[in-house]
């Protein structure tokens, strides 16, 4: 779990998990932590925590290509949760995690409540994993394809089942594709989640005007990158206010479009205790190191002793 590390102004603590930086690699954009390490002078250890790609019980082939398209200030993806399944993950990828002195968060998907419970149990037994993030944006095949995460009752059931299957901290990852995010957040909190992360990608489509067909093979996909940042800031702030009003101790991991240190700080000021970065690392793989340095300087110049002093520090216009 948390490894030996010197506390600095960047250190944060999330439900007992110590991170050396508030920056976390977002699920699906960092594989199983092997790939960025191909780059000279890149170090996984510059990242506070690494969220692994979503893993399901059985392998998933994913969608046919094209799976990605660039949009104004963002990208649209429809990877389709391609992953090797839990058994192959344990055999081929897990042993490689041990090399790195950083924190790993698993991310799980399932197509039934039962499957979520099973996959959570699998990760519960893996000591390299500090927490389990639950991707509830997957369609519920048993219930006609509606995503668990857009229905408060279904969200409750998934988190409840995961909660019962593990003693590790549980993080509910919320989708922004809902009318009232507070309803989903409340359901996850009632079901016993330890933390909340948001936002996952925003449903979107790009059409080629020459072929009159969507560019993605899957027709629609999930929008990420700077384009969704203001949406994410708003949702983080709303969930933060809900949690604060009820005096709950549920840290928020904010994400969506972080490219600069200012973006990261904006999330923290809006109420996030830590932030995840995905798309931004495609642009600049050294984004973690760059933002770490700039936040450190920001804290020093503004005489702030640590990140926690900034969390939720926004004051609304009355």
């Amino acid at each position, binding site marked *: 779990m948390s490894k030996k590390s010197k506390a600095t102004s960047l250190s944060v603590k999330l439900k007992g998990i110590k991170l050396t930086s508030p920056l976390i690699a977002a699920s699906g954009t*960092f594989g199983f932590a092997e790939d960025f390490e*191909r780059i*000279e002078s*890149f170090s996984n250890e510059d990242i506070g925590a690494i969220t692994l790609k979503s893993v399901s019980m059985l392998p998933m082939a994913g969608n046919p290509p094209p799976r990605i398209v660039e949009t104004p200030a963002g*990208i649209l993806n429809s990877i389709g949760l391609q992953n090797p399944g839990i058994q192959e993950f344990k055999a081929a990828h897990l042993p490689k995690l041990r090399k790195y002195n950083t924190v790993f968060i698993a991310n799980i998907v399932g197509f039934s409540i039962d499957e979520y419970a099973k996959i959570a149990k699998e990760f519960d037994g893996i000591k390299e994993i500090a927490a389990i993030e639950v991707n509830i944006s997957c369609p519920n095949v048993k219930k006609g394809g509606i995503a668990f995460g857009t229905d408060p009752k279904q969200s409750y059931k998934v988190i409840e089942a995961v909660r019962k299957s593990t003693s590790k901290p549980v993080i509910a990852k919320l989708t922004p594709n809902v009318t009232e995010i507070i309803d989903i957040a409340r359901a996850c909190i009632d079901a016993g989640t330890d933390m909340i992360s948001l936002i996952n990608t925003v449903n979107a489509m790009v059409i080629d005007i020459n072929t009159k067909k969507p560019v993605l093979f899957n027709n629609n996909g999930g929008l990420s990158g700077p384009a969704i940042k203001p949406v994410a800031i708003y949702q983080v702030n709303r969930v933060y206010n809900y949690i604060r009003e009820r005096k709950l101790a549920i840290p928020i991991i904010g994400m969506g479009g972080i490219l*600069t240190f200012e973006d990261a700080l904006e999330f923290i000021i809006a109420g996030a205790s830590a932030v995840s970065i995905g798309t931004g*690392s495609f*642009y*600049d793989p050294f984004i973690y190191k760059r933002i770490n340095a700039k936040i450190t300087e920001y804290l020093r110049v503004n005489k702030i002793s640590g990140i926690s002093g900034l969390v939720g520090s926004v004051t609304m216009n009355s």
Partner: protein
Amino acid sequence: MQKTIISERAHVLRKTVINERYFKLKVRVSKSAFNHASPGHFAYVLCSQEITGRKNRTFEDYKELKNYLRSDSDSILQSQLILRRPLCIHDAYMRKEKGKEQYIFEFLVRKKRSGTALLAKLDKGDTLELLAPIGRPYGYERSVKEKRDVIIAAGGMGIAPLVFLCRKLGENGILPVIFFGFEEAFALNQGSSMDDDLKALSKSFTITSNTIIEDEYEKGFVTDTLAKHLRGLAPKAVKNTDIYACGPYLMLKEVAKIADEFGINCEISLEERMGCGIGACMACVCKMKNNDGFKYKRVCIDGPVFNSKEILFE
């Protein structure tokens, strides 16, 4: 994990405009990027002018621009194209400049839309942020070791990685037979020495086109000339031949079919849209054969070069 991908700010030494669609960029890279580079590798480049363009703007060095903005702001990054663009290493070599070794990459670029249009604005003195070299290159070293005959089949922009390949083969005493087909005014001779380079680096250099009619060009598809050539070879010569190909999907599918018919080992470079460019996101996959079904492999790291027998063409 071996750290073989270098992230660096390359210096643009020269831009050569071939015509309104095509240009070449010659950049200076580090010794380490050069040493890791092999034919078939690509570079993943940032296209955003504000960062990589004039006045040497880069992540660390865009102070000038900041003066227009709030001091200390990073927000200029937000107006940029998010994705990098993959470009094959068209050529790579070392040269001596005033007694000092310089390591050079060349890129041959076809202007498509936003990103490549921005790259076209780069010029001498500018910088280019790149991650390179990336991917699985051509297995030409085996051809060298086993003293094989090499055929190169290129279609259109598929010529891009093959000049570097010819150079490496040449350094090892192999002169390939080149078949090059194109349908769009490529103007090999205008302001570009590629034509001469390729002639010097090959046993024969045959150009085919259906649309551009010149006395010295063959009419038809590059795959027609390739098949004709193979039919003219003695069985023993066919057996000792390797094919390296790059080009449009349908051409590659045909090349793979021909290679299969003649029982020739053939390596093909594929293209797919990329996200991270380094293996992490699973955006860039292509279908590969797997028992009776298929599996997806990443073009960026498992490729871009694959054995033609592996690829499940559709």
